[in-house]
């Protein structure tokens, strides 16, 4: 019974996060200006991080936690570098 509840909840959460990633990807592809694309990339990174946490609950493996942490750190660095590039025209000055 509890396995069935958990299996359904994890499946629904994974589908919802996959749809959220698809919406962020659509915004990243079609965004009118560059800042919309960067915002879509940031949302895509955040949703991928949450999807990795849900994969960790599904498999019971705590290795996915480290994957999720790395995705979050890379997303932060990527968004800050891209915002700095949009502001100044170069990343490190």
């Amino acid at each position: 019974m509890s396995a069935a509840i958990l299996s359904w909840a994890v499946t629904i959460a994974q589908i919802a996060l996959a749809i959220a990633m698809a919406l962020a990807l659509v915004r990243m592809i079609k965004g009118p200006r560059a800042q919309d694309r960067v915002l879509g990339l940031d949302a895509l990174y955040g949703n991928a991080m949450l999807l990795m946490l849900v994969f960790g609950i599904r498999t019971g493996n705590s290795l996915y936690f480290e994957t999720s942490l790395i995705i979050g750190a890379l997303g932060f660095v990527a968004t800050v570098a891209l915002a700095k590039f949009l502001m100044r025209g170069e990343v490190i000055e």
Partner: protein
Amino acid sequence: MNQAADLPIWAALLIALFLLIGAGLTLIGSFGLYRLRSFYDRIHAPTLGTSWGTAGIITASIIYFSVMESRLVLHQLLIGAFVIVTTPVTLILLSRAALYRDRAKNDPGVPPLDPPNNTSEISNPEKEPTPTHNNTHTGEV
């Protein structure tokens, strides 16, 4: 999911509740990112996923691993602290970059960079409401 059969029923219900709250709020935030009109509206939407979406999924993960391993597992809080610290930093940098680009393009939808200085107020003091209006207008940037 093979080892999840020995979970107690209250833990399964609690994990399912927090998972659905977190994933649903993340989906609503991304739908707002897809649907809203201007960039300054859109930048608010994904923070739904980075505040309560992350908190819900992290809480579900903490409950699941704590019940499965029969001890307190709290390392998921590291992700929560990291996301809470980094999200305002990235979004403030991105919104300031967008504001700079809109001002460089002379977009009429954004307030100007500097309000008119006190020189106009000294030269003709009957136009006093104009600088105060401009001050309040740039104050909300």
